[in-house]
Protein backbone atom coordinates (compact mmCIF):
# COMPACT_ATOMS: atom_id res chain seq x y z
CA UNK A 1 0.00 0.00 0.00
CA UNK A 2 2.86 2.29 0.96
CA UNK A 3 4.70 1.47 -2.26
CA UNK A 4 1.52 2.14 -4.28
CA UNK A 5 1.07 5.52 -2.52
CA UNK A 6 4.67 6.44 -3.28
CA UNK A 7 4.17 5.43 -6.91
CA UNK A 8 1.10 7.69 -7.12
CA UNK A 9 2.91 10.62 -5.55
CA UNK A 10 5.95 10.40 -7.82
CA UNK A 11 4.34 11.87 -10.97
CA UNK A 12 2.75 14.66 -8.91
CA UNK A 13 6.12 15.53 -7.35
CA UNK A 14 7.80 15.35 -10.77
CA UNK A 15 5.20 17.74 -12.23
CA UNK A 16 5.68 20.15 -9.31
CA UNK A 17 9.45 20.04 -9.81
CA UNK A 18 9.06 20.72 -13.53
CA UNK A 19 6.63 23.60 -12.90
CA UNK A 20 9.21 25.10 -10.56
CA UNK A 21 11.75 25.13 -13.41
CA UNK A 22 9.95 27.99 -15.15
CA UNK A 23 11.71 30.97 -13.61
CA UNK A 24 9.79 34.22 -13.85
CA UNK A 25 11.75 37.41 -14.43
CA UNK A 26 11.48 40.15 -11.79
CA UNK A 27 11.66 43.96 -11.90
CA UNK A 28 15.01 44.16 -9.97
CA UNK A 29 16.54 41.69 -12.47
CA UNK A 30 15.31 43.77 -15.40
CA UNK A 31 16.78 46.94 -13.88
CA UNK A 32 20.17 45.42 -13.04
CA UNK A 33 23.11 46.71 -15.08
CA UNK A 34 24.38 44.22 -17.69
CA UNK A 35 27.86 42.84 -17.17
CA UNK A 36 28.93 43.19 -20.80
CA UNK A 37 29.85 46.58 -22.29
CA UNK A 38 29.89 45.22 -25.86
CA UNK A 39 26.50 46.56 -26.92
CA UNK A 40 26.97 50.22 -25.85
CA UNK A 41 30.22 50.26 -27.84
CA UNK A 42 28.44 48.80 -30.86
CA UNK A 43 25.74 51.47 -30.59
CA UNK A 44 28.05 54.47 -30.16
CA UNK A 45 30.20 56.63 -32.49
CA UNK A 46 32.08 59.82 -31.79
CA UNK A 47 32.24 62.71 -34.25
CA UNK A 48 34.96 65.28 -33.56
CA UNK A 49 34.46 68.87 -34.69
CA UNK A 50 30.68 68.48 -35.12
CA UNK A 51 28.26 70.25 -32.79
CA UNK A 52 25.27 68.22 -31.49
CA UNK A 53 22.76 70.77 -32.82
CA UNK A 54 24.33 70.40 -36.31
CA UNK A 55 24.18 66.62 -36.18
CA UNK A 56 20.50 66.45 -35.11
CA UNK A 57 19.04 67.26 -38.60
CA UNK A 58 21.66 64.99 -40.19
CA UNK A 59 20.54 62.09 -37.98
CA UNK A 60 16.91 62.81 -38.90
CA UNK A 61 17.89 62.72 -42.61
CA UNK A 62 19.65 59.36 -42.09
CA UNK A 63 16.57 57.95 -40.36
CA UNK A 64 14.38 59.23 -43.22
CA UNK A 65 16.71 57.49 -45.69
CA UNK A 66 15.88 54.24 -43.89
CA UNK A 67 12.16 55.04 -44.10
CA UNK A 68 11.67 55.90 -40.41
CA UNK A 69 8.95 58.26 -39.23
CA UNK A 70 10.11 60.56 -36.42
CA UNK A 71 7.61 60.14 -33.58
CA UNK A 72 9.30 62.23 -30.85
CA UNK A 73 12.28 64.55 -30.65
CA UNK A 74 13.83 66.88 -28.12
CA UNK A 75 16.58 69.23 -29.29
CA UNK A 76 17.64 70.32 -25.80
CA UNK A 77 18.19 66.71 -24.82
CA UNK A 78 19.51 65.64 -28.24
CA UNK A 79 17.03 62.77 -28.54
CA UNK A 80 15.19 61.49 -31.61
CA UNK A 81 12.71 58.58 -31.44
CA UNK A 82 11.58 57.13 -34.76
CA UNK A 83 9.68 54.07 -35.96
CA UNK A 84 9.15 52.21 -39.19
CA UNK A 85 7.17 49.20 -40.31
CA UNK A 86 9.02 45.97 -40.79
CA UNK A 87 8.15 43.39 -43.40
CA UNK A 88 8.94 39.91 -42.18
CA UNK A 89 10.73 37.66 -44.64
CA UNK A 90 9.02 34.39 -45.59
CA UNK A 91 11.59 32.48 -43.51
CA UNK A 92 10.95 34.60 -40.40
CA UNK A 93 7.19 34.32 -40.82
CA UNK A 94 7.47 30.55 -41.23
CA UNK A 95 9.74 30.24 -38.20
CA UNK A 96 7.50 32.42 -36.00
CA UNK A 97 4.36 30.55 -37.03
CA UNK A 98 5.82 27.17 -36.05
CA UNK A 99 7.32 28.56 -32.87
CA UNK A 100 3.90 29.91 -31.84
CA UNK A 101 2.32 26.57 -32.78
CA UNK A 102 4.89 24.69 -30.67
CA UNK A 103 4.29 26.99 -27.69
CA UNK A 104 0.54 26.43 -27.93
CA UNK A 105 1.06 22.66 -27.98
CA UNK A 106 3.50 22.82 -25.08
CA UNK A 107 1.04 24.98 -23.11
CA UNK A 108 -1.72 22.43 -23.71
CA UNK A 109 0.25 19.37 -22.61
CA UNK A 110 2.48 20.67 -19.84
CA UNK A 111 1.54 20.92 -16.18
CA UNK A 112 1.08 24.57 -15.22
CA UNK A 113 -0.77 26.33 -12.42
CA UNK A 114 -2.42 28.61 -14.95
CA UNK A 115 -2.58 28.29 -18.70
CA UNK A 116 0.23 30.36 -20.23
CA UNK A 117 -0.66 31.99 -23.54
CA UNK A 118 1.73 31.67 -26.48
CA UNK A 119 4.04 34.57 -27.18
CA UNK A 120 1.87 36.91 -29.33
CA UNK A 121 4.91 38.54 -30.89
CA UNK A 122 5.87 35.16 -32.30
CA UNK A 123 2.43 34.89 -33.89
CA UNK A 124 0.91 37.41 -36.26
CA UNK A 125 1.05 41.00 -34.94
CA UNK A 126 2.28 43.76 -37.30
CA UNK A 127 6.02 44.23 -36.71
CA UNK A 128 8.18 47.36 -36.69
CA UNK A 129 11.57 48.75 -35.74
CA UNK A 130 12.04 51.59 -33.25
CA UNK A 131 15.18 53.73 -33.12
CA UNK A 132 16.22 55.97 -30.22
CA UNK A 133 19.09 58.26 -31.27
CA UNK A 134 20.80 60.25 -28.57
CA UNK A 135 23.32 62.98 -29.51
CA UNK A 136 25.34 64.44 -26.65
CA UNK A 137 28.34 66.80 -26.49
CA UNK A 138 31.66 64.97 -26.02
CA UNK A 139 35.04 66.68 -26.00
CA UNK A 140 35.40 68.91 -29.04
CA UNK A 141 32.54 67.18 -30.88
CA UNK A 142 29.66 64.93 -30.05
CA UNK A 143 28.76 61.31 -29.38
CA UNK A 144 25.89 59.53 -31.11
CA UNK A 145 24.23 56.48 -29.62
CA UNK A 146 21.47 54.58 -31.33
CA UNK A 147 19.49 51.71 -29.86
CA UNK A 148 17.29 49.67 -32.20
CA UNK A 149 14.35 47.55 -31.07
CA UNK A 150 12.25 45.20 -33.12
CA UNK A 151 8.67 45.32 -31.86
CA UNK A 152 5.33 43.68 -32.53
CA UNK A 153 1.89 45.23 -32.13
CA UNK A 154 -1.29 43.52 -31.00
CA UNK A 155 -2.29 40.77 -33.46
CA UNK A 156 -5.73 42.40 -33.89
CA UNK A 157 -4.06 45.35 -35.60
CA UNK A 158 -4.24 48.21 -33.03
CA UNK A 159 -0.95 50.09 -32.63
CA UNK A 160 -0.49 48.68 -29.11
CA UNK A 161 2.90 47.21 -28.37
CA UNK A 162 2.94 43.64 -27.12
CA UNK A 163 6.59 42.80 -27.51
CA UNK A 164 9.95 44.46 -28.18
CA UNK A 165 13.50 43.18 -28.17
CA UNK A 166 16.75 45.01 -28.71
CA UNK A 167 18.51 44.23 -31.99
CA UNK A 168 21.87 42.63 -31.27
CA UNK A 169 23.08 42.28 -34.87
CA UNK A 170 26.17 44.51 -35.41
CA UNK A 171 25.20 44.77 -39.10
CA UNK A 172 22.11 46.91 -38.31
CA UNK A 173 24.16 49.43 -36.28
CA UNK A 174 26.97 49.48 -38.87
CA UNK A 175 24.44 50.29 -41.63
CA UNK A 176 22.96 53.14 -39.58
CA UNK A 177 26.34 54.72 -38.91
CA UNK A 178 27.40 54.30 -42.58
CA UNK A 179 24.29 56.17 -43.67
CA UNK A 180 24.82 58.81 -40.97
CA UNK A 181 28.39 59.35 -42.24
CA UNK A 182 27.09 59.71 -45.80
CA UNK A 183 24.41 62.21 -44.69
CA UNK A 184 27.05 64.14 -42.73
CA UNK A 185 29.36 64.25 -45.78
CA UNK A 186 26.47 65.59 -47.92
CA UNK A 187 25.77 68.27 -45.30
CA UNK A 188 29.44 69.34 -45.23
CA UNK A 189 29.48 69.54 -49.07
CA UNK A 190 26.28 71.60 -49.05
CA UNK A 191 27.84 74.13 -46.68
Amino acid at each position, binding site marked *: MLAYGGLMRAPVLACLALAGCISEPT*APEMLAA*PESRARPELQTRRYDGVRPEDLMPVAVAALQDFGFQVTKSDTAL*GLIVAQRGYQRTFGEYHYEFWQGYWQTLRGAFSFQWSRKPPDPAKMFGPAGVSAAV*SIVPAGCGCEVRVSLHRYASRPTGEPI*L*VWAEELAEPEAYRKFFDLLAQALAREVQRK
Partner: protein
Amino acid sequence: MTRAWVVFLVAFLAACAKPGAGDVLSGGESMLKLRSAQTRAFETTDRNRVMRGVVATLQDLGFMVTGADAALGTVSGRKFTADSAGQIYELRVTVTVRPRDERQMLVRANAEFNNKPVEDPAAYQNFFNALGRSIFLAANQAD
Protein backbone atom coordinates in the same frame (compact mmCIF):
# COMPACT_ATOMS: atom_id res chain seq x y z
CA MET B 1 -32.92 29.19 7.79
CA THR B 2 -33.89 32.91 7.73
CA ARG B 3 -30.43 33.80 9.05
CA ALA B 4 -28.80 31.88 6.19
CA TRP B 5 -30.87 33.84 3.70
CA VAL B 6 -29.84 37.15 5.31
CA VAL B 7 -26.14 36.14 5.10
CA PHE B 8 -26.59 35.13 1.47
CA LEU B 9 -28.39 38.40 0.63
CA VAL B 10 -25.69 40.54 2.31
CA ALA B 11 -22.93 38.63 0.48
CA PHE B 12 -24.83 38.95 -2.81
CA LEU B 13 -25.34 42.72 -2.42
CA ALA B 14 -21.73 43.25 -1.30
CA ALA B 15 -20.58 41.87 -4.65
CA CYS B 16 -22.43 44.75 -6.36
CA ALA B 17 -20.41 47.43 -4.50
CA LYS B 18 -17.99 49.35 -6.73
CA PRO B 19 -14.50 50.18 -5.47
CA GLY B 20 -14.31 53.84 -4.44
CA ALA B 21 -11.69 56.37 -5.47
CA GLY B 22 -9.96 55.67 -2.15
CA ASP B 23 -9.00 52.20 -3.40
CA VAL B 24 -7.70 53.54 -6.70
CA LEU B 25 -5.71 56.43 -5.21
CA SER B 26 -4.56 54.85 -1.95
CA GLY B 27 -1.64 56.41 -0.07
CA GLY B 28 -0.36 56.58 3.48
CA GLU B 29 2.91 55.49 5.04
CA SER B 30 3.66 52.93 2.34
CA MET B 31 3.46 55.73 -0.25
CA LEU B 32 6.10 57.74 1.66
CA LYS B 33 8.38 54.70 1.85
CA LEU B 34 7.91 54.04 -1.84
CA ARG B 35 8.63 57.66 -2.73
CA SER B 36 11.82 57.50 -0.70
CA ALA B 37 12.92 54.32 -2.52
CA GLN B 38 12.12 55.92 -5.88
CA THR B 39 14.05 59.16 -5.28
CA ARG B 40 17.73 60.07 -5.17
CA ALA B 41 19.57 63.39 -5.04
CA PHE B 42 22.64 64.03 -7.21
CA GLU B 43 25.23 66.71 -6.47
CA THR B 44 24.97 68.68 -9.69
CA THR B 45 23.07 71.66 -11.07
CA ASP B 46 23.27 70.47 -14.69
CA ARG B 47 19.77 69.14 -15.39
CA ASN B 48 20.52 68.23 -19.02
CA ARG B 49 23.55 66.19 -17.97
CA VAL B 50 21.39 64.14 -15.61
CA MET B 51 18.62 63.73 -18.21
CA ARG B 52 21.12 62.55 -20.84
CA GLY B 53 22.48 60.17 -18.22
CA VAL B 54 18.97 58.81 -17.67
CA VAL B 55 18.54 58.22 -21.44
CA ALA B 56 21.95 56.50 -21.61
CA THR B 57 21.13 54.36 -18.56
CA LEU B 58 17.83 53.20 -20.04
CA GLN B 59 19.69 52.34 -23.27
CA ASP B 60 22.34 50.47 -21.24
CA LEU B 61 19.59 48.45 -19.54
CA GLY B 62 18.09 47.52 -22.92
CA PHE B 63 15.00 49.73 -22.62
CA MET B 64 13.17 51.06 -25.63
CA VAL B 65 13.19 54.82 -24.99
CA THR B 66 9.68 55.93 -25.92
CA GLY B 67 9.82 59.65 -25.16
CA ALA B 68 11.53 62.51 -23.35
CA ASP B 69 10.77 66.14 -22.59
CA ALA B 70 13.65 68.32 -21.43
CA ALA B 71 11.32 71.19 -20.43
CA LEU B 72 9.23 68.92 -18.21
CA GLY B 73 12.21 66.80 -17.17
CA THR B 74 10.74 63.40 -18.02
CA VAL B 75 12.11 60.32 -19.80
CA SER B 76 10.02 57.18 -20.43
CA GLY B 77 10.98 53.70 -21.53
CA ARG B 78 9.65 50.16 -21.89
CA LYS B 79 11.33 46.78 -21.72
CA PHE B 80 9.94 43.34 -22.49
CA THR B 81 11.13 39.90 -21.59
CA ALA B 82 9.69 36.38 -21.69
CA ASP B 83 10.11 33.29 -19.55
CA SER B 84 10.82 29.83 -20.91
CA ALA B 85 7.06 29.14 -21.25
CA GLY B 86 6.59 32.13 -23.58
CA GLN B 87 4.79 34.32 -21.02
CA ILE B 88 5.58 37.99 -21.67
CA TYR B 89 6.57 40.45 -18.94
CA GLU B 90 6.67 44.20 -19.45
CA LEU B 91 8.47 46.81 -17.40
CA ARG B 92 7.57 50.49 -17.90
CA VAL B 93 9.64 53.25 -16.38
CA THR B 94 9.15 57.02 -16.12
CA VAL B 95 12.01 59.08 -14.74
CA THR B 96 11.68 62.72 -13.71
CA VAL B 97 14.55 65.12 -13.09
CA ARG B 98 14.04 68.42 -11.26
CA PRO B 99 16.17 70.81 -9.23
CA ARG B 100 16.05 70.29 -5.47
CA ASP B 101 18.03 73.39 -4.45
CA GLU B 102 21.05 75.35 -5.75
CA ARG B 103 23.33 72.32 -5.43
CA GLN B 104 21.30 69.19 -6.18
CA MET B 105 19.07 67.57 -8.76
CA LEU B 106 16.32 65.24 -7.62
CA VAL B 107 15.74 62.13 -9.75
CA ARG B 108 12.60 60.04 -9.27
CA ALA B 109 11.93 56.80 -11.09
CA ASN B 110 8.67 54.94 -10.98
CA ALA B 111 8.24 51.56 -12.58
CA GLU B 112 5.34 49.30 -13.44
CA PHE B 113 5.82 45.57 -13.95
CA ASN B 114 2.98 43.87 -15.85
CA ASN B 115 0.60 46.73 -14.97
CA LYS B 116 1.46 46.61 -11.26
CA PRO B 117 3.53 49.33 -9.54
CA VAL B 118 7.01 48.11 -8.59
CA GLU B 119 7.37 48.48 -4.81
CA ASP B 120 10.58 46.51 -4.34
CA PRO B 121 13.31 49.01 -3.29
CA ALA B 122 15.95 46.68 -4.82
CA ALA B 123 14.63 47.48 -8.31
CA TYR B 124 15.11 51.23 -7.80
CA GLN B 125 18.48 50.67 -6.11
CA ASN B 126 19.67 48.78 -9.21
CA PHE B 127 18.47 51.59 -11.48
CA PHE B 128 20.16 54.32 -9.42
CA ASN B 129 23.40 52.31 -9.24
CA ALA B 130 23.44 52.16 -13.05
CA LEU B 131 22.54 55.88 -13.33
CA GLY B 132 25.28 56.86 -10.86
CA ARG B 133 27.84 54.97 -12.94
CA SER B 134 26.56 56.61 -16.13
CA ILE B 135 26.88 60.20 -14.90
CA PHE B 136 29.85 59.56 -12.59
CA LEU B 137 27.98 60.90 -9.54
CA ALA B 138 26.98 59.31 -6.28
CA ALA B 139 23.26 58.97 -5.64
CA ASN B 140 22.23 60.22 -2.19
CA GLN B 141 19.10 59.18 -0.37
CA ALA B 142 16.71 62.14 -0.76
CA ASP B 143 14.73 61.81 2.53
